[in-house]
């Protein structure tokens, strides 16, 4: 399974490297979203500092939706889905590979968005350990849930609208927990950020395990 996962992740990242969709489209989209938040909050500086973690994770959520859509659009475009089914690759491996590719792209977006938040919302970075751990765990959760739900909407005509509807409520706890973890790390609240990271870990575990177990069946049925 790991061999297949590396192969699929490599393929997805190769497609990204050639087409540069994440770099040219998703990242600018995320940065523009941050700008729009700035406008919506009317440049209220103390408010922006307080709200920065939440806005950051919202921007990550929207970027995640785009990244997952893209991950499945490349399969759908020339009927490559049949190719995947016929390839003899293990479905669990395909799931892990795709989730890893989406996760890596999201991490790049997050790094750039962190820069954006520092500049636009005047955030001071501290508590690096907690920031990075919670970011890694939430990214794993977003990628896992995204690819799992992406698979089942893969063959459907209404994929573009159904996927956000399915994913957004599912990812709500990730936004919640990640925001709280970051608020704790940045000293904006007195909550226990590590407890929130634990919750993020649970969510990621549920969806990664669920995806591995069910991806085979989901790939067939659409």
């Amino acid at each position: 399974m790991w061999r297949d996962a590396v192969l699929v992740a490599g393929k997805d990242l190769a497609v990204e490297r050639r087409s540069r969709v994440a770099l040219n489209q998703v990242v600018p989209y995320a940065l523009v979203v941050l700008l729009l938040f700035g406008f919506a909050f009317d440049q209220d500086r103390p408010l922006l500092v307080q709200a920065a973690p939440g806005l950051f994770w919202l921007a990550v959520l929207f970027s995640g939706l785009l990244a997952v859509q893209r991950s499945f659009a490349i399969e759908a475009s020339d009927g490559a889905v049949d190719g995947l089914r016929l390839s003899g690759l293990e479905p669990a491996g395909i799931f892990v590979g795709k989730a890893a590719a989406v996760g890596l792209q999201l991490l790049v977006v997050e790094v750039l968005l962190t820069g954006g938040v520092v500049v636009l919302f005047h955030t001071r970075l501290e508590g690096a350990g907690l920031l990075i751990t919670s970011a890694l765990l939430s990214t794993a959760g977003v990628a896992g849930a995204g690819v799992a739900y992406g698979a089942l909407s893969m063959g459907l005509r209404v994929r573009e609208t159904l996927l956000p509807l399915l994913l957004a409520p599912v990812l709500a706890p990730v936004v919640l927990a990640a925001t709280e973890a970051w608020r704790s790390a940045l000293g904006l609240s007195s909550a226990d950020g590590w407890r929130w990271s634990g919750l993020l870990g649970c969510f990621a575990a549920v969806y990664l395990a669920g995806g591995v177990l069910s991806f085979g069946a989901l790939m067939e049925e659409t």
Partner: protein
Amino acid sequence: MRNPQALSSSRLTRVLGWSALAALALNTWWGLWLSPPDVVQGQFVRMLYVHPAVATMCYAGFGLCTLASLAWLWPRLRSPRWDRLAVAGAEVGAVFCLATLVTGSIWGRASWGVWWTWDARLTLTAILFALSLGYLALRRAVDNPHSRALVSSMVALLMALTVVVDHYATSWWVTLHQNTTLFKQDPTVHGWQLATMLVSFIAFGLAFAWLVLHRYRLEVLEERYETEGLASALEARRSEATAPLDVRTGFEGDRGPSRAPAEAVSQ
């Protein structure tokens, strides 16, 4: 081949329906007139006779959906009846979920002047509602019955696990932000209030059962309609094969040694 009994009602549903109606009437009478207003909440306590029961039925519906989905996924137990039960539970649960949100909102507005509070349970219920809409939308998007059952049961399980995570997330989140009003949903009740509340549970419970049963039967009827439709669709599809022959030649079995293949096929 139209089945004359193409309705989802029966003696059981009629009994359930009438008793539900009677219990609801009793609930309304006791709730609005007989039981006294609360010392603290005044008249608004009467929401007690609607909201908790409705909320419980909402959880019952989703719980039913989750358990039925588990049963469907279990290889030895698999049967279409679990899938029908799952969709019945989800749809009825979604209706009660909306009712929970609305009654909760009204109660909040009446008691504390706000339509919404970021109370743990209300927030969780809102997320639950959104999840159920996604589940129902997904069911509509898949045509093949087996795929639909498989995909929705997996999604139901994933969503159930999400709800567990959400429960912790929202309750921790609310305790963090103590400045928002915490909604005390189970005030101490006794006497007439307790009795009326029990009646409300019975009434909405009966209504829930009635709705689930009808929805289940509706699903059975739809499946029957589809299978009958399938038989005639097969006929129509096969006739595409024989029709051109007749149209072109205008004769039956005139040319060639035998019509054996076409006959063998169109049994």
